[in-house]
């Protein structure tokens, strides 16, 4: 084989696209193209210059030896030693006895190797053929071997990085919502350790990490032999480690002189942790600088992932914290709503709310050891703090000076006591200038936990709002009680007024009626008597309205005393109401009230089932409105429509127009149209409100239609 083909074969072995070439493949190819029976690649561990320290990187034998080869126990032969020591090609002829053997084979020559990472070594060829016969080939191969070793190692590194990346990427894909749980991460990193152990021929690989949750040193997090560890850091159990200021290899005297390699997980200059390989499972039985280079990319990858994981966990923890706060606020608000709905006076309301609030505080900020809600109270002119609710050992302590100062200064105060033995946050419970107390939260850590001040403030504000609402509702409750008493008294007064007025006014009206029927008077006297009769009836209606108003004001409904009324009584009632309205209406306005009797008489022998006094009241109120809001020189038509089940009395008048959009409002208490309010001034907006209630009390209903300036009010009454 000529040198060119030999080099091509070696390069092909290093770049085999189908496999994962190793240094072993290079050594084997080297031996085969030089027609050797074996080849051994040596390397001197870092910092060792003597040939005695040479150890095997890889060896290939054409025929496997009959005995088990323990590479770690194989010492370099004299030719190899000579080549290493002199830094030049050595052959058996260079030795005094002219021969050398290794692994039962003759040594044909040894060539010094300068690896690309700066280490030195030797390639020893074994076989029958003198080196001189393949010298040209050997020289060419030795020239490219270090580069190819570097290439192979880079490919190994790349394979390791890819394998680790696959593991970590898959974990991220599985856990899109946030950081994977700590134990799962430990398992993943243990898997990474196993891959590293295989790739680096290490007996065991460990990952130690700086974990904020375990503040003392770098804790063992994952191990190639285990499923992952999240145990507390304990140097005696080798579950934590101190990190050397540089990546390093060597032999660990505490592990029986086993070779080790440590590579730091760096973020800039910050050390996040360490990957440690201990012991070897194959040649070269030590860790060299080239192995450090192999591991560093993986370490960098682990470092980035750890930082990202910590960040994601921080965000996840924070999100979880806010979620808990939101859930806590929801439950607190629900409790507040329930408590505010109770009758004031139950002394347990405030403690119940405060108790939930302090528990929410400790739930949202797990670093809290205790939370106490204090209430301000004034004793002999001095403001003091009384504990209302507490968690942990909160009640054992008196209010801190910081709590008292927070009340005085009306602002949140925090402190980390000298010596860093714990933190304290005190938030005033207040609304505006009203101070109700203080929420005090404390914990053992040397620093105030993230967001704890904000959470304390939010919960303190919520407690303040509750106290404010509770006090306000209490005052409103008292005011309502007083108002109800006053309204009841007023309603009773109105009812009394009704009883005092209605009877004499009706008597006066009926006596006037008798006088009018029994005597003959000139027109002036008759007019005066009719006016007196009309005024008495109107006053009686007003008194009745006062009674109905009193009933409705108490939240009760007027009770109808129905009687069956025939057509004559209905006609009489309508005519009397129309007469009264006519008399009471200013004659200068020329409004005429007319009853279309024939329309009523269509009732025939049917009876309407109503309370006569309610019906008088309703018709009178409707006619009052027609007179009040009617235009001059118009007519108010009063007619009836007889249906299968109802008698509908309709009062149609022309006057101030009602906006159709206002129609639903006309039956509301105290409602008056804008034009009516500004024009007539008088009136209280109670007339149709009362009519509506009275009509419904009789089993009927009130309907109001409006078109331009024509308004029609209908009373729909039940027929029997």
């Amino acid at each position, binding site marked *: 084989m000529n040198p060119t083909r030999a080099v091509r074969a070696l390069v092909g072995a290093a770049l085999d696209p189908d496999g994962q070439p190793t240094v072993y493949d290079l050594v084997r190819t080297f031996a085969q193209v030089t027609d050797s029976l074996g080849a051994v690649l040596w390397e001197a561990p870092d910092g060792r210059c003597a040939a005695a320290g040479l150890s095997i990187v890889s060896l290939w034998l054409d025929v496997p030896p009959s005995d088990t080869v323990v590479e770690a126990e194989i010492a370099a032969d004299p030719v190899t030693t000579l080549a290493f020591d002199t830094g030049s090609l050595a052959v058996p002829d260079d030795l005094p006895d002219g021969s050398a053997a290794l692994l039962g084979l003759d040594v044909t020559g040894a060539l010094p190797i300068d690896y690309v990472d700066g280490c030195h070594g030797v390639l020893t060829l074994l076989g029958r053929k003198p080196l001189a016969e393949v010298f040209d080939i050997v020289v060419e191969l030795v020239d490219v071997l270090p580069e190819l070793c570097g290439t192979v190692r880079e490919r190994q590194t790349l394979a390791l990085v890819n394998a680790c990346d696959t593991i970590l990427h898959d974990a991220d894909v599985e856990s899109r919502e946030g950081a994977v749980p700590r134990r799962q991460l430990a398992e993943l990193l243990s898997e990474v350790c196993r891959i590293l152990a295989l790739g680096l021929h290490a007996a065991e690989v460990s990952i130690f990490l700086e974990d904020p949750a375990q503040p003392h040193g770098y804790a063992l997090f994952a191990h190639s032999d285990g499923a992952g560890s999240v145990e507390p850091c304990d140097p005696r159990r080798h579950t934590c480690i101190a990190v050397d200021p540089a990546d390093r290899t060597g032999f660990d005297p505490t592990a029986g002189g086993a070779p080790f390699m440590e590579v730091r997980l760096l973020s800039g200059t910050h050390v996040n942790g360490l990957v440690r390989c201990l012991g070897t499972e194959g040649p070269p039985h030590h860790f060299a600088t080239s192995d450090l280079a192999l591991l560093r990319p993986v370490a960098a990858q682990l470092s980035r992932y750890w930082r990202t994981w910590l960040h994601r966990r921080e965000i996840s923890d924070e999100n979880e914290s806010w979620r808990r706060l939101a859930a806590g606020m929801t439950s607190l608000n629900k409790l507040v709503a329930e408590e505010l709905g109770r009758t004031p006076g139950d002394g347990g309301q405030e403690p119940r709310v405060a108790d939930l609030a302090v528990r929410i505080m400790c739930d949202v900020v797990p670093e809290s050891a205790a939370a106490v809600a204090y209430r301000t109270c004034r004793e002999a002119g001095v403001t003091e703090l009384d504990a209302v609710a507490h968690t942990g050992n909160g009640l054992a302590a008196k209010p801190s000076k910081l709590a008292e100062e927070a009340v005085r200064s009306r602002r949140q105060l925090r402190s980390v006591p000298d010596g860093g033995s714990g933190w304290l946050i005190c938030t005033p419970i207040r609304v505006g200038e009203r101070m109700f107390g203080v929420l005090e939260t404390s914990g053992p850590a040397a620093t105030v936990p993230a967001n704890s001040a904000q959470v304390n403030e939010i919960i303190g504000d919520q407690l303040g709002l509750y106290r404010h609402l509770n006090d306000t509702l209490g005052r409103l409750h008292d005011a309502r009680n007083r108002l109800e008493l006053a309204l009841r008294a007023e309603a009773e007064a109105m009812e009394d007024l009704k009883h005092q007025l209605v009877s004499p006014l009706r008597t006066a009206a009926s006596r006037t009626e008798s006088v009018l029927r029994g005597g003959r008077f000139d027109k002036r006297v008759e007019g005066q008597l009719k*006016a007196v009769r009309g*005024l008495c009836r109107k006053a009686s209606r007003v008194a009745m309205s006062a009674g109905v108003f009193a009933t409705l004001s108490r939240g009760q409904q007027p009770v109808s005393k129905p009687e069956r009324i025939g057509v004559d009584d209905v006609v009489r009632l309508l005519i009397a109401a129309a007469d009264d309205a006519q008399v*009471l209406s*200013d*004659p*200068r*306005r020329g409004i005429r009230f007319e009853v279309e009797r024939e329309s009523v008489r269509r009732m025939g022998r049917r009876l309407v089932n109503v309370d006569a006094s309610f019906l008088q009241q309703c018709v009178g109120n409707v006619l009052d409105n027609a007179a009040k*809001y*009617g*235009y*001059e020189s118009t007519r108010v038509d009063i007619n009836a429509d007889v249906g299968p089940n109802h008698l509908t009395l309709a009062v149609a008048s022309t*006057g*101030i127009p009602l906006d159709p959009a206002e129609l639903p409002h006309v039956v509301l208490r105290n409602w008056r149209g804008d*034009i009516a309010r*500004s*024009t*007539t*001034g*008088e009136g209280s907006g109670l007339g149709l409100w009362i009519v509506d209630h009275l009509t419904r009390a009789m089993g009927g209903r009130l309907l109001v239609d409006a078109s331009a*300036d024509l308004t029609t009010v209908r009373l729909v009454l039940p027929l029997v």
Partner: protein
Amino acid sequence: MPHFVVVEDDHLQEGPIADNLAGMFPDAVVDAFATEEQFRDHLPQMRETVPDLVVMDVMLRWAFPRPGLPAPPDDVVAGGYYRAGLRCARLMLGDGRLRRVPVVLYTILERNDLERDGQTLPANASYVGKNSEPDVLIRHIRSRLRAHSVRSDGA
């Protein structure tokens, strides 16, 4: 021949007042107005023929409804209906020709209702409650007329 102005929106009350005035002052001229709008419209004419006394209801509607009725003046909208008579009396008090005309506030309201919240009756006004006997109003009118006559003579 005394000249009276009666401002009363209830015609059943305005009639007896006018009748009583006519009874006591047979040769009296009585102008009656039923709304604040009518009273204000009549003010220019009152400046020409200054009345001797005005009998004024206090709760007084602004106007009778009619098609195209304009919106009331701002002071009426702001002041409302319940003290319209006081507003009319103050209008007269602010008028150079009418400021000395006595105004008798004839109302169902109590005097302390009118003087609530630190309000005082206009300087040209006096008070007679409607719940008193009718001759109380007439005696009061006589008294105001005598006083007015003395002041007018003195002036």
